[in-house]
């Protein structure tokens, strides 16, 4: 509308236009020249609190900023396939190798592992306490007083859980357990539900150590080597996505498997306990 009603109106238009543009000063959209990379990782890794400990060391050493998108493993790999990230840092070896085999990523490198723990009510109605995860799940499947909470979200943790049930030869939804519930949610919410229902749940140690709302839950099974959760780093393949910041992403991958990076990982502790165990092959 061609509107020359009054100078007041013109002033109003100008102020509104400025107000529209000014907040963008806070926005700081990514500049192609800035030294930063986008890393797709998982919610459990972020929730463990590793990144605020690890990444500043890397940035100080290289001047490269790492922007972390923390989603489920499946979504992280999808982000990699779409080329929306420069590097991936996830923990589902089978899926990672498939990702590389399909050409979406450069060869993966082992970085570290953490472990899963089976958490459940202190009084352990199903009697699973011990060091053997498969034996524990077998007992769970036969216990009519047990409730189990599954993340059900195709995350690395969920994939691991399914592997253990398979190893025990159990079809989890069809057991004598009182309830097998899939929440389709992250580790934190799953723990919240387990706490509320006094149920059993498979969790990564990091999220468990950080978790405040424990109720009557405690670790019942740990130390089984099958519970170890291997992390890998993958640079997204620039052949498929030319815009990927190859050098910067490679710098991250190289650093995290280097002695400096591995040392930084090992030094991260929650409640005095080390969460991640570096195992990069040199």
């Amino acid at each position, binding site marked *: 509308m061609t509107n020359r009603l009054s100078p007041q109106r013109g002033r109003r238009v100008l102020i*509104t236009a400025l107000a529209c543009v000014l*907040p963008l000063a806070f*926005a700081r959209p990514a500049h192609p020249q800035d030294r930063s990379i986008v890393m797709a990782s998982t919610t459990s890794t972020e*929730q463990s609190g590793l990144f605020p400990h690890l990444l500043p060391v890397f940035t100080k050493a290289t001047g490269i900023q790492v922007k972390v998108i923390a989603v489920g493993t499946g979504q992280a790999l999808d982000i990699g396939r779409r080329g929306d990230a420069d590097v991936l840092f996830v923990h589902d070896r089978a899926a990672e190798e498939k990702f590389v085999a399909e050409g979406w990523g450069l060869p993966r490198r082992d970085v570290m592992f953490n472990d899963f723990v089976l958490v459940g009510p202190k009084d352990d109605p199903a009697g699973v306490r011990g060091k053997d995860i498969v034996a524990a799940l077998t007992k769970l499947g036969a216990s009519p007083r047990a409730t189990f909470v599954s993340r059900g979200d195709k995350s690395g943790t969920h994939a691991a859980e399914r592997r253990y049930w398979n190893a025990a030869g159990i079809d989890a939804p069809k057991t004598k357990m009182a309830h097998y519930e899939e929440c389709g949610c992250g580790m934190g919410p799953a723990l919240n539900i387990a706490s509320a229902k006094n149920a059993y749940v498979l969790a990564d140690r990091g999220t468990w150590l*950080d978790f405040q709302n424990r109720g009557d839950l405690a670790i019942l099974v740990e130390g089984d080597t099958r519970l170890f959760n291997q992390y890998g780093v993958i640079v997204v393949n620039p052949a498929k996505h030319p815009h990927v910041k190859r050098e910067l992403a490679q710098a991250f991958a190289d650093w995290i498997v280097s002695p400096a990076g591995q040392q930084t990982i090992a030094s991260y502790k929650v409640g005095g306990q080390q969460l991640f165990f570096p195992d990069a092959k040199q």
Partner: protein
Amino acid sequence: MSAVGEAATLALDMIVHADAALVRTVALSFAVSGTACLCAAWLGLAGGAWLAAARFRGQRAVLLVLDTLLALPSVVVGLAVYLLLSRSGPLGDWGILFTPTAMVIAQTILVLPVIAALARQLVADALREGGEQLRSLGAGAFARAALMLLHERWAVVTLLLIAFGRAIAEVGAVMIVGGNIDGFTRVMTTTIALETSKGDLPLALALGFVLLAVVALLNVLVALVPRGHAIAVTEWR
């Protein structure tokens, strides 16, 4: 109720100490949602007002579409914008996925129908009172639309505050297109979602209180601006 009490105390503590990270997060929330509202305001106010003043074939259909878009879930908008801005998508070359700009775009799309529908209602009501006289003064559809927006400017302010509320309170769109990157695209609502998923409920609730407190402050400031005339009350049909 101790979780709520704990949260309230924590919220007060956070506000008083004004931790730098918290301030930055709140500022980003306001910047993203405020920018989105202002950008959507142009098109929404003009479009909604014109829809009220004009007469054309298929007008009913347009109104139906507009009202349906009011129920657009934020996560759906987020997903759509994500697919657009992804490197594998049509606008991938812009390279703005996982930036505040993408968040502004998503929220603009989200509040545009809200602003347009409310503006349409507002101007239609005003035209019922004075449309004939404006027409007899020589005002065409655009002029009538513009004059009624000017006439009802305080109701327009309320309308924009409603849209702002919708934007600043949503989490689905900004989570997907922003990626909730710490220190870069993390806003209040995504922080609350994160703390909830970590199980730190008192902190999440406290952040919710902080967000509400800051929005309340905004509303107080707006209410303090002197208005000489009676404010029109907009009612839903």
